[in-house]
């Protein structure tokens, strides 16, 4: 059973990253490959505010979130906005370049060592049937579900949420209806960056934070988002947990070196059968 709990722990991390991917996809139709770097920056800012400046947890979170919100805004305003030819492939390439830049900056500021962020809750082991899970992992799982609930409500029922979705469907039509598409695009990056910071901040006590972490968490989070169906928060959540549990399961039954390979084979198989992902909507396109 332990593989299940292990899978849920790593799965919740993937899920949070996957949700970040979905926000930007839901408004711009883009894949932001710097999402993993947002997570790293979030963890590193928490380290800076908590350990280096010795602030209390509340203000540390607040400062981290505000800074990352600004990073998201800058990201969109400065870099994506000035791309001459705004095709999807161009913009996605820009996000890859930015991911590399952010990684380099993180290395220069915080160095190559892994940083440890102190735990926010008392470190306890919760015994469950056939295994155990730590109190820190439970926090991550709760935050994961909470985020998915808040975001899907926001996108479905609020005025702004609907504006976000309208931008994804048709930017020209949205502009005609009086939606400030530029603002919405900027906000979607800001929220994604904020969510990355949230993910980074709450997983940092479990996994530590190293400047290269963004590569793998970005990749796994992206896979989770694809697995669950791009654009669906619950899909991202479920995709993340599923990917984590599959990995844990293969680490348990096979020589553990194969676990990543098998997790991705399962991912491929699902995509062969259902290309839109487990929770993805089929898009009808009128010709």
């Amino acid at each position: 059973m332990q593989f299940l709990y292990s899978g849920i722990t790593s799965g919740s991390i993937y899920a949070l990253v996957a949700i970040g991917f979905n926000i930007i996809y839901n408004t711009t139709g883009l894949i932001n490959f710097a999402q993993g770097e947002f997570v790293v920056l979030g963890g590193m800012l928490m380290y800076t505010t908590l350990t280096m400046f010795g602030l209390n947890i509340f203000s540390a979170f607040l400062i981290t979130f505000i800074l990352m919100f600004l990073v998201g805004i800058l990201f969109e305003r400065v870099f994506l906005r000035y791309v001459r030819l705004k095709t999807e492939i161009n913009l996605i390439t820009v996000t890859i370049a930015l991911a590399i830049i952010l990684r380099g900056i993180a290395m220069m500021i915080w160095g190559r060592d892994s940083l440890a962020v102190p735990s926010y809750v008392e470190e306890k082991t919760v015994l469950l049937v056939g295994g155990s899970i730590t109190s820190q992992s439970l926090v991550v799982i709760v935050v994961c579900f909470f985020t998915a609930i808040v975001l899907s409500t926001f996108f479905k029922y609020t005025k702004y949420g609907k504006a976000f979705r309208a931008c994804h469907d048709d930017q020209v039509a949205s502009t005609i209806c009086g939606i400030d598409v530029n603002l919405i695009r900027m906000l979607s990056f800001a929220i994604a960056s904020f969510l990355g910071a949230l993910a980074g901040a709450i997983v940092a006590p479990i996994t530590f934070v190293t400047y290269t972490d963004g590569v793998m968490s970005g990749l796994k989070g992206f896979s989770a988002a694809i697995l669950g169906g791009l654009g669906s928060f619950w899909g991202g959540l479920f995709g993340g947990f599923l990917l984590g549990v599959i990995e844990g399961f293969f680490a348990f039954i096979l020589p553990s070196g194969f676990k990543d390979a098998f997790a991705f084979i399962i991912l491929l198989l699902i995509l062969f059968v259902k290309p839109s992902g487990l929770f993805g909507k089929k898009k009808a396109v009128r010709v």
Partner: protein
Amino acid sequence: MKKFFTIAFLLCASYLFAEIKVGALLALTGPASILGLPEKQTLEMMVEEINKNGGINGHKINLIVYDTQSIDDEARKKFIRLVQKDEVKIVLGPTTSGESLAIKDLALQYKIPVISMASSDRIVNPINKYVFKVAPSDDHAVQTIYSYLSANKKVKVALLTVQNGYGDSGRASLLKEAKNFGIEIVADEKYLDTDKDMTSHLSKIAAKKPDAVICWGVGPAPAIIAKNFMQLKLNAQLVMSHGVASAKFIELAKDAANGIILPAGRMIVADQLPANDKYKAILLPYIKDYEGRYKTPVSTFGGHAYDAIQIVQQSIKMGGDDLASNIEKIRGYVGTYGTFNFSETDHNGLSKDAFVMVKIDNMKWKLLK
């Protein structure tokens, strides 16, 4: 006639003020920079001291340091530059195993001795007349662990090794040495450096009921393993490799580090060595000088640089131009890591005596007897 005097004067001058050019290839930037920096600082400190005391046989040392950026190809380029442009007599470094292996053939081609500070056994095996190393091999660490475990009747051992060069080489020597010490390997698991939760691997290991779990890795992953190990309350002794013998590991793993045992160089427990220990007399002054000068804690990697420059000094003192043959004749040099006994067939010179077993107790290193 005037010309003759000028030439004679220049010849005398060049003899009197002759310097010995020593090259150093160190990873001062890139992933291995945490190793390269203390090496550079140690070399600079030592060379300054040697020159202040009149140099070697009256000749001052001129140390030329190049950064290899932790890149193998860069090490090759800088090696050629040291040999052709700077005309050095001997090269210290490179810092990492990959870089050392990359210049192995060049050392033979240019007939310039190289004293590597990296650990891979392949640097000196198969042997190359001009390539030496001062860092102990994985075999030495494994022998130290196994002899401790078998002395403490913990013979059922589970392995958990990282899937990269470091882990593979450790795993190979763990598997190879097991039967020499009567150790039975009950599980052989691997993990990736990017894994964030190792409880799956550990619960699989727990099912085999080992007496000890040996984890072979560096970086943050061993700290995660230590935490997971504590979480699952595994009833076994957790053993780590010498790769985590740094304050960074304890900082990451916090109280999960307590109780872990590992092989390490004597440097981190120098103050706990018995007063008559022959290494204590070398380590304490070095640590005092280094920490006094650079205001940072000493690192075992600086110790490799210390040993390398001492070996250079000894080999030059022997006289003659064939430094490689001189190094092969060095016996019983007591360094920071152990006693070096070089020979024509052993270009490392260390034995398992290079490591001692230490335990992390109350987040501090404690020497195990």
